[in-house]
């Protein structure tokens, strides 16, 4: 039989089971309320730029209503419940999310552009697992912190990013509720839909009114939440620039703050690494979710002796990466979340070229509508190059080589960020040796971008402070009495 090409045909996930309303109001005090601002904004599908829905834009007065509702729910209902009772609500929410997993996955993909494979297999299952996990802690806080007395903080203001909309909601809402706080959540403006679906799930679960409030809007909505005097805690995931503003705004107030910010994480491949798996690790570290991942391994360091081989293998691997319609079950890299983000990425591609780095992109045809970027590799990158220093937040990898452990540790740590790192070697001692020297909140060994509700996550340096996930994640929503 002669050679012929064998190409997969598109296999689109059905959108039939997803109901998107033409217009969404604010979710305050258990009810859908038209915004006092009387204004709405559009959310679009980044895969084809088509309009999906109108979303209410909360102003400071709307935020005030939401905080009042959360405060009343805290004082009158939620703080009066036992941990076991709170746990029951969380379990109920988790199960409902699981039942609606398919709908949530499609919605996440439609609104945010991520491949259905990821929203179906990673985002939504992990989000459910976070609720299950923290539901289990709700009546075991004494066991989490033995010998200590503790209580909830009160009203938590939470601001989530657009890269993992429902998952980041789960990271924030689940521990907050488990610890006895009530919540006002502001989702990112480009990806509000799964948060609004979550509000419907809260209603369906019979969660007492005001325990979860969702105020949609842009940065000024978030700023109003941060500035509100009756908010006890701010949890933010997003850019370092905004994180700094929040930190400044909270100075001199009684608000507790946790920040999960940007990163420029180092992924380090030593010459004795399992090389094919390491190459796959590169794919997972930088091309997962179009590179819209705060802990993305965007700086690759390869030991000199295997650098050429790794690069060749990586280029070959990229030939079987499918870029395109996020609803296609075979798509590996979907749409860039927004036009604005695509412009940012493209700006960095130009910067990289101007800095003299060598660019590689595989041959692939991008859809004519929507926001797409080819997976990109830059080699010959200087440590001082902007593309190696600044967070791009896209499918763009810089590759540098190194000779000695000392050199790679210095280069990896030479960054204002310190969120994550990856180490690839078959030598166990080197794993421990390197990971103890890397200034990063998370170090993965022979894997990358692995998440689990039981595992704490958070950064060093300008990547933020506080930890989410695991037992550590509880302490961000508790105050201790001793």
């Amino acid at each position: 039989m002669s050679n012929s090409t064998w190409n997969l045909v598109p296999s689109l996930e059905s959108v039939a089971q997803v109901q998107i309303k033409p217009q969404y109001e604010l979710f305050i005090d258990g009810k859908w309320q038209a915004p006092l601002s009387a204004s709405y904004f559009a959310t679009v599908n980044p895969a084809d730029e088509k309009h999906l829905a109108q979303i209410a834009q909360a102003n400071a007065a709307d935020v005030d209503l939401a905080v009042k509702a959360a405060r009343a729910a805290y004082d009158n209902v939620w703080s009066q419940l036992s941990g076991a009772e709170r746990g029951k609500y969380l379990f109920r929410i988790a199960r409902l999310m699981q039942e609606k997993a398919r709908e949530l996955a499609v919605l996440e993909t439609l609104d945010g552009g991520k491949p259905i494979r990821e929203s179906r297999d990673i985002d939504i299952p992990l989000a459910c697992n976070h609720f299950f996990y923290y539901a289990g802690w709700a009546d075991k806080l004494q066991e989490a912190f033995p010998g200590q007395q503790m209580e909830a903080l009160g009203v938590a203001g939470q601001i989530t990013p657009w890269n993992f909309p429902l998952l980041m909601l789960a990271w924030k809402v689940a521990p907050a509720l488990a610890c006895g706080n009530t919540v006002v959540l502001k989702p990112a403006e480009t990806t509000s839909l799964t948060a609004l679906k979550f509000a419907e799930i809260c209603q369906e679960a019979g969660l007492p009114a005001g325990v979860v409030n969702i105020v949609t809007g842009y940065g000024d909505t978030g700023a109003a939440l941060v500035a509100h005097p009756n908010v006890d805690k701010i949890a933010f995931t997003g850019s370092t620039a905004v994180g700094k503003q929040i930190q400044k705004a909270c100075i001199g107030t009684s608000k507790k703050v946790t920040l999960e910010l940007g990163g420029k994480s180092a992924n380090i491949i030593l010459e004795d690494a399992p090389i094919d798996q390491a190459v796959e690790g590169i794919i997972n570290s930088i091309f997962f979710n179009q590179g819209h991942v705060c802990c993305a391994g965007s700086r690759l360091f390869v030991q000199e002796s295997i650098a050429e081989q790794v690069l060749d293998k990586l280029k070959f691997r990229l030939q079987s990466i499918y870029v395109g319609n996020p609803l296609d079950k075979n798509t590996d890299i979907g749409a860039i979340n927004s036009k604005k983000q695509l412009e940012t990425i493209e700006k960095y591609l130009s910067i990289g070229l101007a800095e003299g780095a060598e660019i590689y992109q595989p041959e692939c045809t991008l859809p004519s509508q929507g926001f797409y970027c080819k997976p990109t590799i830059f080699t010959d990158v200087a440590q001082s190059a902007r593309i190696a220093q600044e967070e791009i937040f896209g499918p763009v990898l810089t590759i540098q080589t190194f000779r000695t452990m000392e050199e790679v540790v210095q280069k990896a740590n030479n960054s204002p960020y310190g969120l994550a790192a990856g180490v690839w070697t078959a030598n166990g001692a080197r794993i421990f040796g390197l990971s103890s020297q890397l200034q990063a909140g998370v170090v993965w060994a022979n894997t990358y971008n692995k998440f689990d509700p039981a595992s704490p996550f958070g950064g060093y340096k300008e990547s933020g402070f506080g930890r989410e996930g695991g037992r550590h994640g509880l302490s961000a929503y508790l105050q201790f009495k001793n």
Partner: protein
Amino acid sequence: MLGTLSTPELSSLLALSPSIDQIGTLERIARIQARSIKGAAKLQGLRMALSMIDLTTLEGKDTPAKVRQLCYKAQHLHDQAPDLPTVAAVCVYPTMVGVAKKALGASGIKVASVSTAFPSGQAPFEVKKLDTLYALDNGADEIDMVISRGRFLAGDYQFVYDEIAAIKALCGVARLKVIFETGELDSLDQVRKISDLAIAAGADFIKTSTGKIQPAATFPVVHTMLGAIKDHFDKTGQMIGMKPAGGISSSKLALQHLLMVKEVLGEAWLTNEWYRFGASSLANDLLMQYQKQLTGKYQSAAYFSID
């Protein structure tokens, strides 16, 4: 370089075998298995898989009649479906090679013979050579030899290398497939090492299993062997064939394996010159799925001949 490596040379070659991470391998496979092979791609894949089958009977109770029947099936997979390809080869014991050769005539379908005291390989080297020569004299186009697993596990790599090289020297134009029986090897690192060794010793194909031991052609094992083939190709430009055998009995598995070949090696390997399935029951499932794709209906298993 055939069969000429000294012990130090062989040691340094095997020292270059990269380590294989089991968890990472499973993740890579999960990505491939998550792909959706539908419509025209499925139809094409099913035809391709049919054309890559080494239709096999390797039983003590094999009869000439059974082998002739299998050879007929090899040429007429399902005459109710027009334009089907034939399988690639019929795989039998050396004593049945003559029967198969005659039955297949000028069909172009190859006769593959197992040899070297298949399946265990537990025979003196002289016996293994005679076994192979017997198959070749009777017209075998391909030799499926087993390695001495005991010697490999004992670390006697030179012995295993020399054995493969010696059988290869006997083969002449016949293509040599080297069976590792990966179900008896301990780890993916071992699978990688034996792959590198067999390729260096002159294997034309590397093959997972005899079909007599479980587990056989698992995805991690096949993935590891494909990796060795790819690295050898990148280094030398020489293509080596791959034959998973044992355990691939459904169309779904076969298509996933083909997709793995496409993604790990590239499309050049998607032909029966470079890829085979060692299987007996796979053909009928492929035929059933093929008819389903064409007609939209599943037919009863009774419509497909069991040979």
